């Protein structure tokens, strides 16, 4: 039997993840939409096939995955497996599945995403299954464009062209916000790369202060101050706290929303017939690069588990093409499984808008710059996301000038690298 339990953050902090019993596997899971429910359902079949195995799906808030899980793992009291997004940062705790699974199948199915789970040292371990591939991109309120009588910019339009168009639409339709971008360094990185930032060079040197990065920072700060970008998103929070603008978009208060493919399910459900929306991918920078950021979540096992072979079997089960395709269809995500992607996914109950959005995101994948892929797998990327959010916000509210903010990002990054060894 599978149980779905909602555990509070506090309970987890206390290390409630019970000591594993005979064949009990605890799976710490968070949902963007309905992922955990679907896993729970699919794993019931695994339990039926494997007598005595009980996979308990502990549904936690995303915050718990970010903040509590690493501490639990460091203290040796973590779950047996989890759905994580800090793919490289937690790599030291992953269970290498290679001895238990068919390496040929995994390598041909998951290809490059396997390296995201290997951390700084690389190697050829099979550490995790990329369960949902995501890519950042823009959602546009097509109804507002229509009402305003403004032509939607073409596929290869630049950020500036989009800013101009979105502002024109907002003005004509009396919409409060022309554009918004989620408050995280991850979303910021796509356009920054398009503006020429290297972020992570081929030899693995990180940078948050080169010319391209500074150029987009300056542009972004300017847009926040002249009302092109919704100031509430970046200026309304402190620290490195994540803040999205999905609700504003859903309420029809936002023309152009730069977020990512994981929002499709939510848009599909909550926008309904309220207005027409579509996905336009990532706009281009001045140099013609039109990159978004790849990303996503994966399912990993942890070395501390008492039942490595069962954990590996569970993950291998989820990685099988038919199961993976089913989960992808039911959760309306982009597949990272190459076989599933090649065969195409028939998204379940997805509206035409959602299906179109997902294929728009999928077709945007080839535009993703190599630096963006490197950044996604980089061990210290979480620290860099935080530094970006904090310092750029300070520049927006005027505590720092853009130059000072860029300088601080450079010194913060240096300190973070030193602290993380």
């Amino acid at each position, binding site marked *: 039997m599978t149980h779905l339990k909602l555990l509070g953050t506090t309970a987890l902090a206390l290390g409630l993840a019970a000591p594993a019993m005979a064949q009990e596997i605890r799976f710490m899971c968070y949902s963007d939409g309905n992922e955990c429910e679907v896993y729970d359902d699919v794993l019931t079949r695994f339990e039926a096939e494997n007598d005595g195995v009980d996979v308990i799906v502990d549904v936690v808030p995303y915050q718990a995955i970010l903040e509590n899980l690493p501490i639990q793992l460091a203290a040796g009291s973590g779950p047996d497996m989890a759905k994580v997004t800090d793919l490289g940062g937690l790599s030291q705790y992953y269970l290498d599945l290679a001895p238990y699974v068919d390496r040929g199948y995994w390598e041909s199915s998951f290809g490059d995403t396997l390296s995201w789970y290997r951390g700084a040292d690389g190697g050829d371990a099979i550490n995790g299954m990329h369960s949902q591939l995501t890519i950042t991109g823009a959602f546009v309120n097509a109804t507002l464009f229509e009402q305003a009588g403004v032509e939607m910019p073409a596929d290869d339009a630049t950020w500036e062209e989009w800013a101009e168009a979105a502002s024109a639409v907002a003005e004509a339709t009396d919409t409060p916000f022309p554009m918004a971008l989620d408050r995280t360094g991850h979303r910021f990185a796509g356009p920054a790369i398009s503006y020429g930032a290297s972020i992570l060079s081929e030899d693995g040197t990180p940078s948050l202060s080169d010319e391209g990065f500074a150029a987009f920072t300056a542009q972004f700060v300017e847009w926040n101050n002249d009302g092109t970008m919704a100031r509430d998103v970046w200026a309304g929070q402190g620290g490195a*706290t994540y803040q999205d603008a999905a609700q504003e978009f859903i309420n029809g208060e936002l023309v152009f929303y730069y977020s990512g493919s994981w929002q499709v399910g939510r848009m599909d459900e909550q926008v309904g017939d309220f207005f027409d929306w579509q996905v336009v991918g990532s706009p281009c920078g001045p140099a013609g690069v039109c990159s978004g950021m790849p990303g996503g979540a994966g399912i990993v096992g942890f070395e501390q588990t008492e039942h490595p072979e069962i954990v590996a079997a569970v993950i291998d089960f989820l990685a099988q093409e038919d199961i993976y395709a089913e989960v992808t269809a039911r959760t309306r995500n982009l597949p990272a499984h190459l076989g599933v992607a090649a065969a195409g996914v028939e998204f379940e109950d997805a509206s035409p808008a959602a299906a179109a959005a997902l294929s728009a995101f999928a077709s945007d994948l080839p535009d993703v710059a190599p630096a963006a892929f490197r950044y996604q797998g980089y061990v210290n990327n979480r620290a860099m996301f935080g530094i970006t959010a904090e310092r750029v916000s300070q520049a927006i509210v005027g*505590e720092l000038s853009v130059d000072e903010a860029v300088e601080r990002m450079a010194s913060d990054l240096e300190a973070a690298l030193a602290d993380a060894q």
Partner: protein
Amino acid sequence: MAGTRGQGADAPAPSPTRDTAPGTAIAETAGATDPRALRGAGDGIALRVIAPVMRIIEIPMLGLQRVLGINRLAWVFLLPNLLLFGLFAFLPVILNVVYATTGGDNVMLADRPGIGAGNFTRLLDCANHLDPNTCREDKFWRAVWNTVWFVTLQVGVMVGFSLLTAIVLNGKIRARGFFRSVFFFPVLLSPVVVALIWKWMLQRNGVLNAFLDWAGIGGYNWLVDAQWAFAWSVFLSVWAHMGFYTLILLAGLQAIPRDVYEAATMDRASPWRVFRRITLPLLAPTMLVVLVLALIKGVQTFDEVYAFTGGGPGTATTFIIQYIYEEGFAGSPRLFGLAAAASLLVAAVLVVLTLVQLWVNRKSVDG
């Protein structure tokens, strides 16, 4: 220790009441003698049943008493509590000090390299401490100055309003009991609930802006403006905690003897003069306690403002405890050492404030 024991032996009636109001305590004790004597018969049977059971405990305790002597036996009774305190209060403090001298982002102490006072020098490294931009840990100093401003404003405004409220509530007004409880209600609310309620009122599409729009004044995006967000944080904090200090001041006001006021009335002193020459001086000891308590609470402010603004816009409402939380737990890499060092610096400030409070307390009791 000897003193307490003596008191316990020859004073069966609860002694604390005696200190404050000797007359009433004695009267109550005398009135209670009768029923107690009647109940005595039943107690005798109960005792006969319980006594053998208690003997089981008594025998080893008597042995211990013989071995340790009566004075040292106290430690046996204190031991369980000491263990709990040691484990959950002293050990964490010691661990905090040890963590403050280590660096890196590992959780386990064994994996953390010792760096001596490195974390402290990093925090205190500034060209000009008044300008956070010149500091190595600029966020720490922003948080420090934000906290200083916040505490000054919050304590000033709050104690002022508490005094005013206490004086009004001490007067003969209609529905006095009702108003006294109304002002105390916010204290009972969870700080996070308070923050969310006010956020709901003040956000862009909040209740206040809806009202301002309706009134034709036009709304304003309060929480995205650094100054306003700070001002509202002060307001919220005052609103939430005022009731507690009002209550203390009210008690202080009621402790002022009536006859002094009567004498002033006979001398035809003006109300303002009565307030300045009688109320304020006689309220001073209570006032000092309130001030010091409010200062300590003010420095510790975190939850309500964190839930309210998240520390933003930028770092406008980031206070020192939030800085510690973010460095140690929310951010990446997790700098436990730096956070521990910063928390020790805050602890030093709080210890000073607490000493001031103790000193003030002693002075007001003695004088």
